[in-house]
């Protein structure tokens, strides 16, 4: 091999690039998250088909479900799957209820969006919101498993959802012709949407805990502001049912009363000063201020007889009450 041959520059070989279609789920998610302007541009030029919108919507629901799971970690047990189901339901129902008015109000304001565009805009906004919620899910989970303060958790989730929905609505404003600046009606619609979300949340309550009767949602109808006030003042009829489930003694005790497991757990773990009357249990005024579950004895004992002894002690204590 001569020297001249060695220094001849090699011409670059064009390798076949991996064909990346625009509507791959990962591309869509990064489009919404990283390039909202481009997303808005595509929607404005009607280059966002139904399949892409539905992909975004499905991703949004999946992410919402994950955040619901993190929310449910606060109470654990059945709350995990219930809240994982409720959060996407709340998002989907709120969007469905408010979509017709967005379409009509924008059309009458001279900034019309087609049906396909309206679905794309709402799916994009829902997806961005849910991605931010998923980003906060580890934080929500951490606080959920490490605090017992319901009020703090409410404030935390309101703040997280506020950030998520805020960014989602900003994307919506960017994607709609003239945006918030040129469409005052969009502000009215946004206010209505937030109120519908809040009422929907109240409809599917409780999210952080289980209902007093253990059902999927509470039957009693309430306005969202009433529910918020009750929750923040600790007057809700909710139960921190499986809050400390890993404690074996507690679990065993709950199993001894299978017909009323929720009430049993609630009786043991409800840490309000004035516990509510749960089904099958009448509150005795004399024990209202006591710590409901005292596991100090349990912690001091080690050995195989622990569970049996503790369950017996607590059961007899409960029956005396």
């Amino acid at each position, binding site marked *: 091999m001569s020297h001249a041959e060695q220094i001849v520059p090699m011409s670059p070989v064009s390798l076949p690039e991996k064909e990346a279609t625009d509507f791959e789920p990962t591309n869509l998610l990064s489009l919404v998250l990283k390039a909202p302007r481009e997303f808005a541009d595509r929607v404005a030029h009607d280059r966002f088909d139904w399949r892409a919108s539905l992909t975004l919507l499905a991703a949004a629901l999946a992410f919402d479900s994950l955040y619901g799971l993190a929310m449910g970690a606060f109470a654990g047990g059945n709350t995990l799957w219930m809240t994982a189901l409720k959060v996407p339901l709340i998002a989907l129902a709120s969007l469905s209820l408010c979509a017709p008015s967005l379409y009509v109000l924008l059309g009458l304001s001279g900034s*019309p969006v087609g049906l396909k565009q309206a679905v794309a805009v709402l799916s994009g906004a829902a997806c961005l919101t849910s991605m931010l919620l998923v980003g906060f899910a580890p934080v929500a989970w951490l606080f959920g498993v490490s605090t017992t303060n319901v009020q703090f958790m409410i404030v935390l989730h309101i703040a997280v959802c506020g950030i998520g929905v805020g960014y989602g609505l900003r994307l919506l404003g960017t994607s709609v012709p003239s945006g918030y600046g040129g469409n005052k009606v969009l502000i009215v619609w946004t206010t209505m949407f937030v109120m519908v979300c809040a009422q929907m949340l109240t409809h599917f309550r409780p999210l952080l805990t289980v209902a007093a009767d253990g059902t999927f949602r509470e039957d009693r109808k309430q306005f969202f502001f009433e529910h918020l006030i009750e929750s923040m003042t600790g007057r809700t009829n909710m139960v921190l049912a499986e809050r400390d489930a890993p404690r074996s003694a507690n679990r065993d005790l709950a199993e001894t009363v299978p017909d009323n497991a929720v009430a049993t757990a609630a009786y043991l773990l409800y840490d309000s000063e004035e516990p509510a009357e749960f089904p099958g249990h009448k509150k005795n005024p004399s024990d209202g201020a006591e710590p409901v579950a005292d596991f100090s004895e349990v912690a001091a004992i080690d050995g195989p007889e622990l569970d049996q002894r503790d369950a017996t002690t607590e059961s007899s204590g409960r029956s005396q009450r």
Partner: protein
Amino acid sequence: MDSAHSQSGWRQRLPLSLGLDPQRGEEFFERVADRRQLAAAIGFSAVVVVLGSAGYGATFGLWRSWTLALYVAIKLPVLLVTTTSLVMLLNWMLAQLMNSGLRFVQIAALTYRAMSTASLVLASLAPVAAFLAVTCPPPRPSDDLSHNVLLLAHVAFVGCAGVYGNSTVLRGLTRLCRPGTPITRLYLSWLASNALVGCQLAWILRPFLGSPNYPVAFLRHDALEGNFFEFVFVTIVWKRLLGG
């Protein structure tokens, strides 16, 4: 193929016919100015008014009972169509007085169009109103909170629809009247006539939301006694606010 074409044409035509386009229904005003196919335009608007307001009316009564929902689904279209029809003659006279150059049929087309725009907005808000009615606390004679909150929500929704309807009238007058017509004065006089007749008709046709203190009925037994303005000024302003 043909059906696909006609379907896409239908999908494009309907939003245009309803004014959901960038020009906000300018084509309609051109039609009114040229007096082309106005009978069809009025008929289409009337259909939109009936369907839209019936849908929203049902959500009005839903909170109280299904029976009242059905009653209001009938009464709200009656209210809107009757109000529009009753004020038509007065509106035409006012338009002549102010030398607008508008013919009766043009005024009919314009006022029905405004009412159809308002009804369209109401129909789009109906899912939210229905959701509120279904999820808010049920009627209790001792508790007015639900009634008042729902009433407030409906006032906001109907107000929003009214703003859109009136903006259609104003744009129409701006496009159609002769130069030199006092458009603002004409518009305000039309607004006043609509409010005068509409409020009294609504008073006669009550209940809409259904106060928990009264039984569900199509019309109140005292429907033709008193009037809306007497109630507002005497009962609310004079007796309750001023302690008269």
